[in-house]
């Protein structure tokens, strides 16, 4: 093993590593976005106050029950096992031959959704009750209150947790090699198989994973600063002394 060997391994195999890293990024980006949308929806539904009408109350209860089952199930089982069950199960049960990439995105999305639902719920609960009351007092309904007042604050507050989830997704897509998704780990394994070298390809993969996760960290910090806006505000004219 030497630096030269690693460099020659990169120069000989870079398209494979790059495609692997690209696939990893694709799955984790789309998975995180879809997952966040699912999480937001689920989190918002789970924080709807108990309605007055009996029918609405029953419907909400059933929906909440379904969401709980979804969240607990996907949080409570390993993604690597879910991947096998969903990919081979869909073939067995419905005779669908899922596209591997689609299956990967699907699995990452619903997993992220399950985690994000709880993060969003926590975010909504932590918003001061006065914010809801002020919105209600000017006549906003639940959707308007959520959309204009609560969710913008929740999204800002859960951004660090969302970034965390994104980073976890970049790393955890590696388990999807079990259903033959050609992400970074899969590609490193392939290069290892061809070259009969193990340290070097995985070392390269390791560096690439870190570059991806660290870049995401930096980008999210930047977005957080942007969302917070300027420290100061500009006065319009001069107030009286």
């Amino acid at each position, binding site marked *: 093993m030497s630096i030269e060997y690693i460099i020659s391994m990169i120069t000989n195999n870079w398209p494979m590593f790059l495609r692997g890293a690209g696939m990893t990024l694709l799955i984790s980006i789309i998975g995180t976005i879809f997952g966040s949308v699912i999480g937001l929806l689920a989190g918002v539904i789970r924080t709807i106050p108990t309605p007055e009408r009996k029918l609405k109350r029953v419907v909400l209860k059933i929906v909440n029950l379904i969401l709980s089952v979804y969240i607990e199930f996907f949080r409570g089982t390993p993604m690597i096992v879910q991947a096998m069950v969903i990919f081979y199960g869909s073939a067995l049960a419905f005779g669908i031959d899922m596209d591997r990439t689609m299956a990967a995105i699907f699995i990452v999305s619903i997993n992220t959704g399950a985690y994000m639902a709880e993060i969003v719920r926590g975010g909504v609960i932590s918003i001061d009750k006065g914010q809801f009351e002020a919105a209600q007092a*000017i006549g906003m309904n639940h959707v308007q209150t959520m959309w204009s007042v609560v969710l913008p604050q929740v999204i800002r507050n859960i951004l660090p947790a969302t970034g965390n989830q994104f980073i976890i997704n970049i790393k955890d897509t590696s388990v999807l090699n079990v259903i033959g998704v050609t992400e970074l780990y899969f590609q490193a394994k392939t290069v290892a198989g061809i070259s009969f070298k193990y340290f070097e390809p995985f070392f390269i993969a390791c560096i690439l994973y870190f570059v991806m996760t660290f870049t995401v960290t930096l980008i999210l910090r930047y977005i957080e600063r942007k969302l917070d806006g300027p420290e100061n505000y500009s006065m319009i004219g001069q107030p009286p002394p």
Partner: protein
Amino acid sequence: MGNVIEVQHLSKSFGNHEVLRDIDFSVNKGEVICIIGSSGSGKSTLLRCINLLEKPSGGQIIYHGENILDEKHDIHAYRKKLGMVFQQFNLFNNHNALNNCMVGQVKVLKRSKEDAEKIALKYLKVVGMDHYVNAKPKQLSGGQKQRVAIARALSMEPDVMLFDEPTSALDPEMVGEVLKVMKELASTGLTMLIVTHEMEFAREVADRVVFMDKGVIAEEGPPEQIFNHPREERTKAFLKRTLS
């Protein structure tokens, strides 16, 4: 004519704790009513029942002749006709001063952005905060926040303004600026229902003072009566405690 809100036999319990009992009173158009009483007597709860932030346990609230506690009544349509100013301001943290005054107009009243901005600026000027349109709540002092909160409520151009101890969370030097704004509003003929501990203010602006004690209205009348010639022993005792 003139009767905007009429509260009849209103009661409210939290669990087995009866907080309001058989409250009867009405708000006339253009009237300024101050509600006084010791802490825990149910003043906030009464105000919150009136705009349905709390669900009354019994009785009726008649608004322009309609019982708004009726199942079929549109709560949101009713609430937008009442402005509410909270002790803790409750400005929307994600919006600057201008947007705090616009978001309700745009979303609830469906006004255009241009109209909403014009109206918001008009009321921000009334409360002396038009220079601070770009400031976020966390960049404002307590008194400034409360003035923006008043402008937010006024921007909805409500029938009645409800104030729940608007100066109680303020540092003493900021109380004056908020009371000054409220006095100006009172002189414009706005209908106002104000829970307050500021007795001088109540004496000066109120057309009618309501004294609450242990969940009931113990006495009500013009400020002259309540402050100078209270008829009830409870009122006398309360005033002695607070004014000394």
